[in-house]
């Protein structure tokens, strides 16, 4: 069981084939990057905490003698791997975006519409996370983009080690990697995959209070895509309230309204990706 969220582990399955036909003779350049996970530094902030509760191990001298100081981040192992992924993405000139949302917000549909605009000119690849089925990767591959499906089994999120393994199979260089996380606004917020940005997708068929109900995800994201805006005439939905709520938990979050059906806002989303790529390459 995952100690962070209680989801199951040990049942992850990953496709071997990316659906791309041009693997033969492919040059996979591995620039030098640091594999020394043990040396990874975590920023430690010193905070003063008042513990009024006297009934703790530290307050009992007899038990305090048996205490071993550990001082380890619970998510440290994932964070170290995520740092490794980030280095790997940088050395390969890859912009990695981690797309997160509730189930049914339209991640895959939006991604298909995005890939149709980017291809064939751009280099792209997709890692698809779902508990079961390869349905989403099949939809992605139909656009011509290479995709790997990761089935998390009982797990409710992708973690950095799954991305490390999938990235090695995708052989992408100088391009954009879209990671479609498991549809879940809770746990994926806690697991850094090494992405440059998390992009949260909130559809107008959900409630305007989603950012307040699931604040960690909106706080962790650089951009909110408001999806399915073509449906707005049929709904009693206040887009400005959704945006105000998102900025309550993340004052700096960028917002783009999009519709995969009508194409509205897709151009702005593509410009955002292009700018993010330029920033990633410039600061790599």
């Amino acid at each position, binding site marked *: *069981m995952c*100690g962070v969220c*209680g989801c199951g582990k040990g049942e992850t399955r990953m496709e071997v084939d990316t659906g791309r036909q041009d693997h033969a003779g492919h040059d996979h350049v591995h620039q030098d990057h640091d594999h020394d996970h043990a040396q990874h530094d975590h920023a430690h902030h010193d*905070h003063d*905490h008042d513990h009024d509760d006297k009934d703790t*191990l530290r307050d009992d001298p007899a038990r305090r003698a048996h205490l071993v100081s*550990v001082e380890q981040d619970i*998510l440290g192992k994932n964070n170290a791997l995520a740092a490794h992924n980030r280095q790997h993405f940088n050395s390969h000139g890859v912009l990695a975006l981690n797309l997160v949302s509730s189930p049914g917000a339209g991640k895959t549909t939006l991604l298909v519409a995005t890939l149709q605009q980017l291809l064939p000119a751009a280099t792209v690849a997709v890692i698809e996370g779902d508990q079961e089925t390869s349905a989403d990767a099949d939809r992605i591959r139909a656009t011509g983009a290479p995709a790997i499906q990761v089935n998390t089994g009982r797990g409710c999120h992708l973690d950095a080690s799954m991305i490390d393994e999938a990235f090695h199979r995708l052989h992408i260089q100088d391009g954009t990697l879209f990671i479609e996380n498991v549809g879940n606004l809770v746990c994926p917020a*806690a697991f850094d995959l090494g992405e440059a940005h998390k992009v949260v997708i909130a559809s107008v068929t959900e409630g305007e209070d989603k950012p307040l109900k699931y604040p*960690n995800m909106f706080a962790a994201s650089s951009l909110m895509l408001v999806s399915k805006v073509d449906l707005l005439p049929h709904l009693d939905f206040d887009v400005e309230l959704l945006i105000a709520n998102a900025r309550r938990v993340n004052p700096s979050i960028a917002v783009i309204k999009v519709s995969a059906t009508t194409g509205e806002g897709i151009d702005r989303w593509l410009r955002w990706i292009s700018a993010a790529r330029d920033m990633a390459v410039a600061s790599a």
Partner: protein
Amino acid sequence: MGVLGHVDPRALDFAFDVEAKDSPAEGAELEIREIQGRAWCMDCSRLETIVRRGDACPECGGFTLIVEQGEELRLKELEVV
């Protein structure tokens, strides 16, 4: 464990008991120390305590808060018996 973090203490407590069963940690107590949420308010330039994300600054009511503390999740110490 920071109160603004991703982990529900009750869920961790439950998972700990399940995972500890049939392991050297069976019967061990899990002691969770809570760390309060602190955020820097960009509007009034003060460090304030917040209970959850999305809360307004208790001083000025503004929402441009940068979280400084409360996302921690660390294993501090183990008692060896």
